[in-house]
């Protein structure tokens, strides 16, 4: 037994560390997604000069609505789990999984910190350090279409099917733009590993400006944000579901199956925020913070403990994620919805040529600077 542990020490430690990271990171994301369901209602309320939900209470303590996610979950579980008589039972059951699982799997490649030394063991703060992480992101986010389309088709409902068609058309179109905006980043960083891309953003331009993606590729950032919100199926691109007027692909879903689709949407908000932070805003990088502490451009330095540096980096990543989540909520509650022809026109006539132009300009700049 002891020999077995000794012989397989590395792989066992790796498994243990990966399991721990999955538990902690996924737990954090699930908790944050649950809070986002509350935050969406609170942020929209505050933007519209309202108070928002504040009634759900435990033993008379409401904490300004903090218990509403729990109340919502209990309500969802208690609802009747209805399956239409003519629905494809198997696919109808599978569709919520197709919506939720790929989105959750994507978090594996997102680095939420550099590394921590724990008892001499180097713990990388990223669940899966894949060389082609960015392509996995694109591949798995393409999987989300299956959830939408299977749900619409398996419901055997014409309106759900129409919603699913709209959704599939929108997601396939914006997938292209999303992929093309990231090509510029691939050319600059020369790597598809997200951890490498974040490390590359730790350099300084002209000795003072952090070389974040948004500084190098501001154009790509705006295109990425638009395409990512469209991929996320949220306002101003929410004509997939259009909860108030037009009917979406999950109209036959109820109870926790419906909640799975809603939850997938909120997890996607976190995912888009984390991707925006990782690719364009330096991920876990804090400006001027290095492994040994702060080194400011003027030459002054502030040495910091290793654990403090790691905590600052993870905190920086969290703050960026929260900021972008907030930003997506504000966008969702500010802008009106696009018409379908406007949506498609924006994608194919505006965003796609601009993304291609961005690649051309990036390439030209790289050649001119002699970096290629």
């Amino acid at each position, binding site marked *: 037994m002891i020999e077995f542990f000794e012989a397989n020490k590395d792989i066992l430690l790796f498994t243990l560390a990966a399991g721990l990271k999955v538990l902690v990171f996924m737990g954090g994301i699930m908790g944050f997604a649950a809070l986002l369901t509350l935050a969406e209602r609170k*942020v929209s309320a*505050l*933007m*519209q*000069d*309202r*108070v928002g939900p*504040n009634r759900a209470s435990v033993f008379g303590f409401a904490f300004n609505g903090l218990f509403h996610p729990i109340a919502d979950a209990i309500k969802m579980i208690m609802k009747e789990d209805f399956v239409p008589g003519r629905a494809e039972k198997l696919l109808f059951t599978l569709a919520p999984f197709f919506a939720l699982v790929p989105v959750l799997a994507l978090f594996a490649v997102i680095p939420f910190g550099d590394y921590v030394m724990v008892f001499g063991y180097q713990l990388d703060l990223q669940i899966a350090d894949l060389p082609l992480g960015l392509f996995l992101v694109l591949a798995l986010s393409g999987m989300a279409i299956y959830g939408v389309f299977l749900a619409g088709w398996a419901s055997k409902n014409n309106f759900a099917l129409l919603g699913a068609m709209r959704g599939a058309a929108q997601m396939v179109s914006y997938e292209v733009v999303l992929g093309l905006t990231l090509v510029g980043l691939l050319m600059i960083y020369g790597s598809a590993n997200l951890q490498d891309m974040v490390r590359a953003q730790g350099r300084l331009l002209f000795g003072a400006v952090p070389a974040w993606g948004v500084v190098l590729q501001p154009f790509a950032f*705006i295109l990425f944000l638009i395409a990512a919100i469209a991929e996320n199926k949220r306002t101003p691109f929410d004509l997939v579901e259009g909860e108030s007027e037009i009917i979406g692909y999950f109209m036959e879903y109820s109870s926790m199956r419906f909640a799975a689709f809603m939850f997938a949407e909120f997890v996607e908000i976190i995912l888009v925020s984390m991707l925006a932070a990782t690719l364009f805003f330096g991920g876990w990088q804090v400006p001027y913070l290095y492994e040994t502490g702060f080194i400011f451009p003027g030459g002054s330095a502030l040495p910091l403990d290793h654990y403090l540096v790691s905590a600052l980096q993870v905190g920086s990543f969290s703050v960026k994620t929260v900021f972008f989540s907030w930003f997506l909520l*504000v*966008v969702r*509650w*500010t*802008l009106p919805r696009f018409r379908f022809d406007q949506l498609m026109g924006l994608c194919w006539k505006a965003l796609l040529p601009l993304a291609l132009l961005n690649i051309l300009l990036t390439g030209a700049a790289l050649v001119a600077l002699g970096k290629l």
Partner: protein
Amino acid sequence: MISVKKVNNRPLNFLERIYLWEIGRGLLVTSRHFFVNLFNPKKIVTVSYPEQRLPLPGAAGQRTRHRLKVRADGSPKCVACFMCQTACPAYCIRIEAAEYPDNTVEKYPAVFDIDLSRCVMCGMCVEACPEDAISMDTGEIPGGAGDRGELLMTRGDLLRNLPGEPSVKGAANRLANEYLEGKE
């Protein structure tokens, strides 16, 4: 004369057509509201209704839950004349009259029911009352109930004077006043 507001449908300029600049301006407006309200939650105009109430505006206080006024001797001011029951458009008032053993002038309501589940809060009963015995000035707004029975107000629920209000003296009828003075 209909007031006409002229809309200036000028063509959009370049900044407005690419939409991003205007999105940014819109986001500024909404996020300004967000932060102002986040740091100044007291300024939000929302009233948390059951706990926090505003005074009813204007004459709305005269269209609240009914009451029957009480005389100084504890008897109802109502003389069971059926005026209100006749005037009621919702047929929600039910009166059964009875006679005092020693009073030949007045009757009194042995039963006075108002079914709030049918009442339309029109105030016709108050207008119709010749004795000014019924009024709708309690300031309480009838809400929902879990049971129809809870919405049926009987004589006991209705007979009350407002806090601080002196008990009603006298009646409209001269003979009734003489009788009342005789009782004192």
